[in-house]
């Protein structure tokens, strides 16, 4: 396998792997349904954690969405490499004639699509549950959600690959990932609170810049780092 295959070949190989993962998910629907239900449950339960007369639902909603979203993301990410444990499927992936970066990118693409699909349900749900104006919510939260999803998946996919080979995968994945989610959750919550409140876009801009920078830095760093987690 050539470590320096041209970019289109790398992307084609990544897409093949992503398609494989999505096909598995589409046929079993095991993770998607449970993650969607988990997200809806989280949105509903968090509502009762605050006194609605003290904190307005509008202020509450973004924080609730991002917390629930990051935990739900972890559930989905855990499966990403978890499915490769069975019958040692990971070995087959590793001997496949593709770059190792393509394995990571493929998994990350599949995870991004997975998480985005969860968000397609979660964002309108949060608007519904927290009585937010739909016209403002969907573009504001949707755009930020996509940026947040990329960063979350970039880091989480790499840690999922590492965590499955350890003795306490279920515990270690959140432990490794959550500190890395801090800038994502903080920036998305701050940006979306401002946009939902109808503040000018410029007020949310510095937070969105942090999100974009995080996505770029960690998408590149994790792609480069992934082969280093594997045996040479």
């Amino acid at each position, binding site marked *: 396998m050539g470590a320096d295959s041209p970019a289109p070949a790398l992307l084609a190989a990544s897409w093949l792997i992503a398609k494989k993962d999505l096909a598995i998910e589409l046929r079993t629907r095991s993770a998607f349904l449970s993650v969607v239900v988990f997200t809806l449950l989280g949105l509903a339960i968090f509502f009762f954690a605050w006194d609605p007369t003290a904190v307005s639902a509008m202020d509450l909603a973004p924080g609730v969405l991002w917390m629930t979203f990051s935990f739900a993301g972890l559930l989905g990410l855990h499966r990403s490499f978890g499915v*490769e*444990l069975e019958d*040692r499927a*990971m*070995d087959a992936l*590793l001997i496949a004639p593709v770059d190792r970066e393509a394995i990571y990118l493929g998994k990350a693409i599949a995870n991004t699509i997975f998480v985005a699909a969860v968000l397609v349900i979660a964002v309108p749900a949060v608007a519904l549950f927290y009585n937010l104006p739909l016209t403002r919510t969907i573009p504001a939260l949707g755009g930020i959600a996509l940026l947040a999803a990329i960063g979350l998946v970039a*880091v989480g996919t*790499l840690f999922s690959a*590492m965590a499955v*080979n*350890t*003795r*306490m995968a279920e515990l*270690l994945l959140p*432990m*490794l990932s*959550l*500190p*890395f989610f*801090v*800038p994502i959750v*903080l*920036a998305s919550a*701050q940006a979306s609170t401002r946009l939902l409140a109808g503040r000018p876009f410029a007020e949310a801009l*510095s*937070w969105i810049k*942090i999100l974009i*920078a*995080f996505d770029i*830095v*960690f998408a590149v*760093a*994790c792609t480069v*780092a992934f082969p*280093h*987690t*594997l*045996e040479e």
Partner: protein
Amino acid sequence: MTTVQAPAPTPVAAPGATRPIFDWLLVLAVLGVIGAGIRIVLFTPFEAKQGAAQKIYYIHVPAALSTYFALTVAACMSIVYRWLHDERADRLAESAGEVALLFATVVLTTGPIWGKPIWGAWWTWDARLTLTLFLWFVTAAYLVLRGAVDDHAMRARYSAVLAILATLLIPFIHLSVYLFRTLHPMPIVLKPERPSLPAEMLTTFLLSVGAFAFFAAALMRARYRLALLREQAEAA
């Protein structure tokens, strides 16, 4: 998945490492910290406004600097390990990680003790506090990860990757929590202008920084030797 078993680590024949060790350097370092403590308590004037509470500064800031020192060693050694695949670098990174967690714990305990009388609150979600807290979490995760992988080579690879990514994370947490809010006192010694600390206090502070850094280095060395002994015991 790793099917190919990594070659068993060849026992490193470091001279003198198998003997039960009495760590003179560590004893010296502890004496240094005790000496600094005596100077802090007895021979340094009280600060006019904060009184006795300010004296924690001589422990808090040196401990924070030692944390950064140990974390820098851990990050650099992780990069060196990825580059040279030298087991010594991995062992040193592990030792530095443990020492960093210890000093970060000191920082996070002494901070609230000062914060309660001065700020009126044990904890606030200030930029530096939050950053230190998350550094503590990442360091703890690093050590837990190390404990959860049995294979030597895999453990070294995983922890090196985590340490390098954590280094990239620090500016992001710092920037985002700084934008969020900050309340922490600004540096009074490590700043572009001259230190604004009276000479006596500055001497105490610098002595304490030296003592803590020396203590951190001695602990790292002790921990490194322990790791070596453990590996030799496992290989035997």
